[in-house]
């Protein structure tokens, strides 16, 4: 009953330890079957007595066939303990999924502790390797189950793809089958076959397309890629500096060009071409070997065009379509990555090739199948290629029997493996989302791709809400630390139709000539308490997501639109920042308090602007607005002098048809004085709160910083500006702000355009924990402020909720929650919030892009556009009216197999950023105005693309795709 385990272990310090562990064997381990009469029945007894058979899986089946196992048709499965621990050691994600299956009682998965059961424990024999011993343990468990349940109905079937293991099992008297054979035998569920993952194991699966028809040996197929080096060799190489490790980032505009950020090399290493990429996928952690300097390349200057594939006659004539204009550097990674010193070294950068994969980061991909001619017969096996919506991911080959059903649908696929002999990775189908082009499906797709949680709030979360209808109670009023400010004239200004009002202001003239100004923020933390299900759910979601037609809330609607929302004419709880300000906007004193307010008016921006502008209106509220505006303007001026940047973004607003939810019109978002006024006070409140919490909690405050862009990031802007004769000083934010003010061009839009381009050089601002960085690093470049945080929108941002708690603790109102004190969890929290924030932004952009496509579907429009980048085969334009950006090709697309037409050539002048036709008749320069024709084309059915062409030439260009 007592065993000892002995093995040697090498510690990180290089020492070798002899490890000696106890291993107890028990006689009280149950088999988990309801049909069993000897073992005790309890909570874990899930295996049904009516099942036809019990399946016992081995390690490889668990690791590779997870999608099949998760299918509801598979139930009554025994997972031996040895399999579970091996899966845990090899793949944490799969282990998590297996644990979920076990926890779900309806699936009837049972973990059998075979390693500690006295009858099924197997001791390693002399000379036996670990894997063989584990296989023997699995077989032993199978035979034990058979004898244990002998006579009772269910048989036990061992599922393994290892032929040797299966044979030995049968010799020992156990029944064994490969996964494929078992799934085939399940005639009640033929669709299960689609879920079987393709692995390299033997097992009689249908062979891939290249060997279709003949089950020829693998050796016959050509090796298309180099071998990956083994882990030991990679580690040795990394230590020696032969290889470099980094995460692979594929260029969104050219999926055969990627960059690996390497600390050892200092700059990014370019990987170009299918072979050099060597089966690495975007997001994988790879080991790269540098090529000799003579072979270093420069990034391809052209706009990527997919080349024809030499495969089964499927011609690819796709071109890059237009999309939403990027706003910041992260939106256009290809662009940011390209701004390497093209002038230096003849345009070459460190180039390398992938020699091994250190960690695969495959995930589930959403997209659709490439159209192909289906095989004859409806149930026949087809091997289509799957194209993901994420352009950085390669095409995936799957096998399916329901090609007709999946042809025009958005589906989800996972990658199983990528052999050296196959051009594309192989994967399997997981599920269908809906029709392509259908707005609901596409919205769901973009939410999925951005990891946004759209599930309704669980009952546990809803139970945390106060009972409805809710109103401020006497108990709330009685609290001594809550100031009763209901006598103040408070109002709020928000976009039209806004129902989640989180901020309100008041402005009172004081007898001494100063003003008392207050910013009141919804007191969300009064209702969201730390570590409750509501809090944990909100922390996970991180932020509300704004799509064009809907909003996915961080908190349940009763809170966001009613209880916390500072609606007009009702008492509401708030967290207030109150300043005393001189008429020249100097702050004399400030204090913070929780409060009760009663807003007199919930205005919209146009309304507020109209009131301020109308000379006939002089009621007290309008006077307050005017005072606030005046002071705001002074503060804004002061900020600009300090170096705050006034940047521009091509924000576009859709007018949505209330019934069909289709876009009726799209236009640029108007920024009025009222917008700027509110912005000013929100900034002031955020800065004030940041100072206060940092003073009290210097090591665990949640702040927001904006890193200074590196000189490299300004490259494209400087080049573009220089080409049109404008000099920009990027030495400091103030210098940049001043030179942007001076940049005037031929037309009024010019300055805005330059600002938009400048914004593209900026990085994303990020949340961080103050204890992790030194004070100089707290700086917010864009606002030219030494520190900043988010305080004013707790209804839609979780960071603000955390800051509210910090402020409440600073005021000694409530203790600081445990999690906020712990540096590590704050670090994880800020990483999580940054991730969610970024995803919400990308989802919002994707939604706008989707609606833009729908908008242009039945309309073709001509519009004015500005050239923002010049390329070797055309240029990229930005259309201000619609906020879209895309390529305009000047050269004709080369025919299949043929090279580019030499007569068609255009010459690019990098320094002056111009492109001229060979016959010198047409010249285009960056920032020029052109007219483009915008329309949606479907080069393949159900694959709409937004295409931009030069309007003046569009009549001639019939041959263009």
């Amino acid at each position, binding site marked *: 009953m007592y065993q000892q385990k*002995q093995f040697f*272990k090498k510690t990180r310090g290089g*020492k*070798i330890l*002899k490890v*000696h562990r106890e291993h107890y064997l028990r006689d009280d381990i149950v088999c988990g079957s309801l049909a069993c009469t000897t073992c005790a029945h309890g909570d874990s007894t899930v295996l049904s007595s009516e099942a036809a058979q019990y399946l016992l899986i081995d390690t490889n089946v668990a690791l590779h066939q997870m999608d099949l196992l998760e299918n509801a048709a598979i139930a009554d499965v025994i997972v031996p303990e040895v399999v579970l621990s091996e899966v845990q050691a090899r793949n944490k994600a799969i282990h998590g999924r297996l644990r979920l299956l076990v926890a779900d009682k309806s699936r009837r998965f049972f973990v059998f502790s075979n390693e500690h059961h006295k009858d099924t424990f197997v001791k390693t024999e002399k*000379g036996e*390797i670990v894997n063989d011993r584990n296989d023997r343990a699995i077989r032993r468990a199978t035979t034990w189950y058979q004898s244990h349940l002998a006579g009772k109905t269910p048989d036990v079937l061992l599922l393994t793809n290892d032929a040797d293991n299966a044979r030995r099992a049968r010799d020992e008297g156990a029944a064994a089958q490969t996964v494929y054979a078992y799934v085939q035998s399940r005639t009640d569920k033929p669709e299960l076959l689609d879920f079987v993952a393709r692995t390299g194991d033997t097992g009689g699966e249908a062979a891939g397309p290249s060997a279709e028809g003949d089950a020829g040996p693998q050796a016959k197929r050509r090796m298309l890629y180099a071998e990956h080096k083994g882990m*030991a060799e990679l580690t040795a190489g990394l230590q*020696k500096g032969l290889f470099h490790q980094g995460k692979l980032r594929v260029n969104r505009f050219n999926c055969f060009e990627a960059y690996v950020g390497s600390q050892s090399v200092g700059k990014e290493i370019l990987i170009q071409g299918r072979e050099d990429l060597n089966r690495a996928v975007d997001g994988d952690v790879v080991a790269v070997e540098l090529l000799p300097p003579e072979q270093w390349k420069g990034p391809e200057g052209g706009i990527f065009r997919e080349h024809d594939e030499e495969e089964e006659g499927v011609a690819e004539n796709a071109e890059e379509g237009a999309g939403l204009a990027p706003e910041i550097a992260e939106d256009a990674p290809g662009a940011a990555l390209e701004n390497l010193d093209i002038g230096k070294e003849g345009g070459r950068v460190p180039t390398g090739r992938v020699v091994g994969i250190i960690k695969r980061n495959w995930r589930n991909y959403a997209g659709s199948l490439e159209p192909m001619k289906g095989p004859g017969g409806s149930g026949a096996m087809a091997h289509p290629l799957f194209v993901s919506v994420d352009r950085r991911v390669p095409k995936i080959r799957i096998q399916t029997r329901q090609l007709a059903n999946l042809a025009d649908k958005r589906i989800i696929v996972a990658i199983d493996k990528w052999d050296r002999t196959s051009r594309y990775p192989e994967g399997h189908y997981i599920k269908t989302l809906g029709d392509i082009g259908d707005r609901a499906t596409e919205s769901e797709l973009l939410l999925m791709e951005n990891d946004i949680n759209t599930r309704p709030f669980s009952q546990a979360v809803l139970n945390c809400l106060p009972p409805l209808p809710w109103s401020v109670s006497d108990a709330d009023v009685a609290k001594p630390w809550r100031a009763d400010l209901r006598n103040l004239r408070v109002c709020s200004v928000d976009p039209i139709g806004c129902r989640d009002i989180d901020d309100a202001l008041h402005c009172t003239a004081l007898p001494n000539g100063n003003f008392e100004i207050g910013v009141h923020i919804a007191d969300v933390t009064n209702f969201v308490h730390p570590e409750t299900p509501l809090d944990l759910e909100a922390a996970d979601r991180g932020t509300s997501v704004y799509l064009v037609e809907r909003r996915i809330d961080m908190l349940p609607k009763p809170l966001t639109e009613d209880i916390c929302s500072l609606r007009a004419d009702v008492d509401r709880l708030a967290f207030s920042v109150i300043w005393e300000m001189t008429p020249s906007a100097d702050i004399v004193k400030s204090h913070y308090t929780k409060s009760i307010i009663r807003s007199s008016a919930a205005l919209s921006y146009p309304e507020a602007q109209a009131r301020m502008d109308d000379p006939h209106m002089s009621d007290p509220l309008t006077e307050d607005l005017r005072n606030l505006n005046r002071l705001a303007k002074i503060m804004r001026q002061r900020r600009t002098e300090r170096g705050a940047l006034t940047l521009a973004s091509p924000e576009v607003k859709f007018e949505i048809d209330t019934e069909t939810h289709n876009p009726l019109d799209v236009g640029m978002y108007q920024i009025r004085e009222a917008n700027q006024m509110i912005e000013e006070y929100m900034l002031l409140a955020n800065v004030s709160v940041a100072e206060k919490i940092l003073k009290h909690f210097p090591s665990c405050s949640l702040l927001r910083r904006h890193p200074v862009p590196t000189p490299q990031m300004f490259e494209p802007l400087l080049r573009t500006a220089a080409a049109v004769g404008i000099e920009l000083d990027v030495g400091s934010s103030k210098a940049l702000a001043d030179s942007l003010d001076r940049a005037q061009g031929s037309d009024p839009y010019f300055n805005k355009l330059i600002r938009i381009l400048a914004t593209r050089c900026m990085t994303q601002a990020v949340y961080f924990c103050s204890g992790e960085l030194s004070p100089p690093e707290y700086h917010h470049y864009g606002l030219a402020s030494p520190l900043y945080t988010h305080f004013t929108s707790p209804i839609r941002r979780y960071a603000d909720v955390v800051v509210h708690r910090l402020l409440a603790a600073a005021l000694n109102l409530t203790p600081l929650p445990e999690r906020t004190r712990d540096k590590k969890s704050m670090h994880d929290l800020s990483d999580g919030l940054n991730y969610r924030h970024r995803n919400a932004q990308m989802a919002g952009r994707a939604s706008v892009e989707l609606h833009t496509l729908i908008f242009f579907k039945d309309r073709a429009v001509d519009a004015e556009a500005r050239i923002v980048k010049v390329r070797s085969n055309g240029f990229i334009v930005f259309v201000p009216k619609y906020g879209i950006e895309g390529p305009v090709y000047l050269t004709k697309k080369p025919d299949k197999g043929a090279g580019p037409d030499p007569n068609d050539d255009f010459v690019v002048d990098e320094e002056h950023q111009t492109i001229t036709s060979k016959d010198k008749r047409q010249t285009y320069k960056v920032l020029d105005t052109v007219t483009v024709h915008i329309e949606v084309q479907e080069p393949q059915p159900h694959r709409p693309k937004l295409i931009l062409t030069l309007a003046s030439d569009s009549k001639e260009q019939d041959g263009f795709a």
Partner: protein
Amino acid sequence: MPGLSAAELSFLEGGIAQDLRNDGRGREDFRSFSIQLDVISQASGSARVRLGATDILASIKAELGSPPAEFPHLGRLELAVEISPTAGPEFEGRGGEELSAELGKALERSFAGGANGTGAAVDLAALSVVEGKTCWVLYADVLVLNADGNILDASAIGIKAALSNTRIPKVEVLAGEGDEEGELELNDDPDECARVSTAAVPLIVTLTKVGRHYIADATGDEEAQMSSALSVAVNEKGQLCGVTKRGSAGIDPSVISDMLSVARRIGKRLLAKVDAEISLAESRLESET
């Protein structure tokens, strides 16, 4: 521990003179001893030796370290003796330090061999992993649990037994390039281990002079009366591996050569007995697992 009275003393000496010691042994007889192997499972090898009432634990721990600077192609063997306070109140705190240092030195002298590794108890060259960089270091520690005379001899037996029980894991040096060191890959299978050859490990025979005669394997009482003692290390081939004289009185040189040959003779007999005991202990160990 109370000392012996004058009467007891003369009784002791008289008996020895007549080749009849207190416990009935002859002058050259060793007490019976028993060996138990693999008592400390965490050590690479271990043994427990009970020589009469003297009880010692010997453990060998193999760890990776750097070879001696002057001889980069060799491994290392480090010996240390510690006397546990369980042996008696006189050994508590720092009480046993002097004795353990003396014994440790004596062991080292007999086992370590010459400066360049020749004649060492174990094959030091076999312990080298990467010449000049890494080698196995065998730390041999002796813990005395109960002291009833002749600790040195018992320690030697213990170390020999522990070495026979020692398993050193196999380490592979992965291909390095040029003169760069490769990574070490550990073969963690406990069956794939190298064993240490104990053929050259000597045993120590301590001859204690009491009165005008010398006896082998003195008990605690006898040792308390010694004037001087000679510890001789003898190996399989009958060679002398180390000689240590202890005690304050002087020994006549002619007596020394006589003592050496006697030690050799006793040593040979002892070696055979020890080997037999070790194999007995091993078979007992096998049958248990």
